[in-house]
């Protein structure tokens, strides 16, 4: 008999495409296709292992999102879902050209900046993160947005914010045209005051 942990059978002559496995996990397959996938999975541990890896990846992404440590554009649905899961959301809304006094506390789970902007007639938008002198440090390219929305909802990494000393960050939304040129949509200043214990400035090794 085979030992524990060994697959049975060990070879798969017709492995399920990873895209199909993803759709299976997401319950997005039609009934007959889903049944065929399940029949295969009950005969093939190799594909079962691949599905487990996919689930682990999905769970890993979920944990990352839950940790609030990703800097990314999110939707209202994302915020609603986070609130329903009991996460504490700290939000700041900034008008075009406006500045906001902000902080985070140990209890906060998610940090959100709402950047007001006119998004109509725009093809592509980049979000530039700049230092207090306005010099671009990082750029989120081709961010998702809805033309009908009146703002972009940006999640800042809560891990970064909790570690950050009192400082000023400038966010800049720009539309990018066909030639790759930037056109300003809005600039937003976040004056972050540290409320957690820690060094007064970033430590550089």
């Amino acid at each position, binding site marked *: 008999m*085979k030992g524990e942990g060994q697959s049975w059978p060990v070879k798969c002559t017709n492995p399920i495409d990873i895209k199909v496995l993803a759709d299976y996990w997401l319950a997005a397959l039609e009934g007959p296709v889903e049944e065929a996938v399940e029949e295969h999975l009950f005969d093939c541990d190799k594909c079962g292992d691949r599905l487990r890896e996919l689930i682990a990846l999905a769970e890993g992404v979920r944990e990352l999102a839950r940790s609030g440590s990703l800097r990314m554009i999110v939707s209202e649905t994302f915020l609603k879902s986070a609130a329903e899961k009991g996460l504490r959301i700290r939000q700041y809304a900034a008008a075009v050209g406006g500045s906001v006094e902000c902080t985070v506390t140990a209890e906060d789970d998610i940090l959100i900046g709402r950047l007001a902007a006119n998004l109509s007639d725009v093809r592509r938008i980049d979000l530039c993160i700049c230092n207090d002198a306005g010099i671009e440090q990082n750029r989120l390219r081709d961010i998702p947005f809805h033309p009908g929305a009146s703002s972009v909802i940006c999640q800042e990494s809560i891990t970064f914010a909790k570690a950050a000393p009192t400082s000023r960050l400038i966010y800049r939304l720009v539309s990018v045209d066909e030639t790759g040129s930037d056109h300003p949509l809005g600039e937003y200043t976040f004056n972050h005051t540290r409320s957690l214990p820690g060094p007064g400035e970033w430590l550089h090794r």
Partner: protein
Amino acid sequence: MEIELSDGELVRRIAAGEREAEAELCRRMAPRIRLYGLRHLRDVHASEDLTQNILITIIEALRHSRLREPEKLASFVLGTCRMTILDLRRGAQRKERLLEQFGPDLLGASESFRPRLDQERLAHCVENLKERERTVVVMTFYNEQTSADVASFLGVSEANVRVMRHRAICQLRDCMGVTA
């Protein structure tokens, strides 16, 4: 020498009363049932309960030679899983009494379900995704939103969302060193 039993031979040995064959059945089928349960119940503990219930049902049936075509063991287990999930959804009671009776024999079928992931590496991989792809995977796996919901947020077609999702998953697998 290690002998790999076919499903049919395994079924016949269980019918003949071989306890070691029952243990092998658990080793072979438990991971598959657990995976099925996780997909349909979305809960590790519920999936574990389902696995134990199914194994009890299957062993009972095989001890009494109720499977007419022994080579079709996998189909039999899958069919039992489907029926049990249906029953669960109809609010059927769990088989606590049988679990008490058979539970200790099934402990060996337990396994660590998920491969362990390096979360720090995954964070780096997710950060390297394009903005839209990152949004798609987070909305998909964190919010459990359908392609239609994500498409509505992004202002693109559902087909486009599926392409982005697939591309992102492939990139994450590559970045995490998953080669299978």
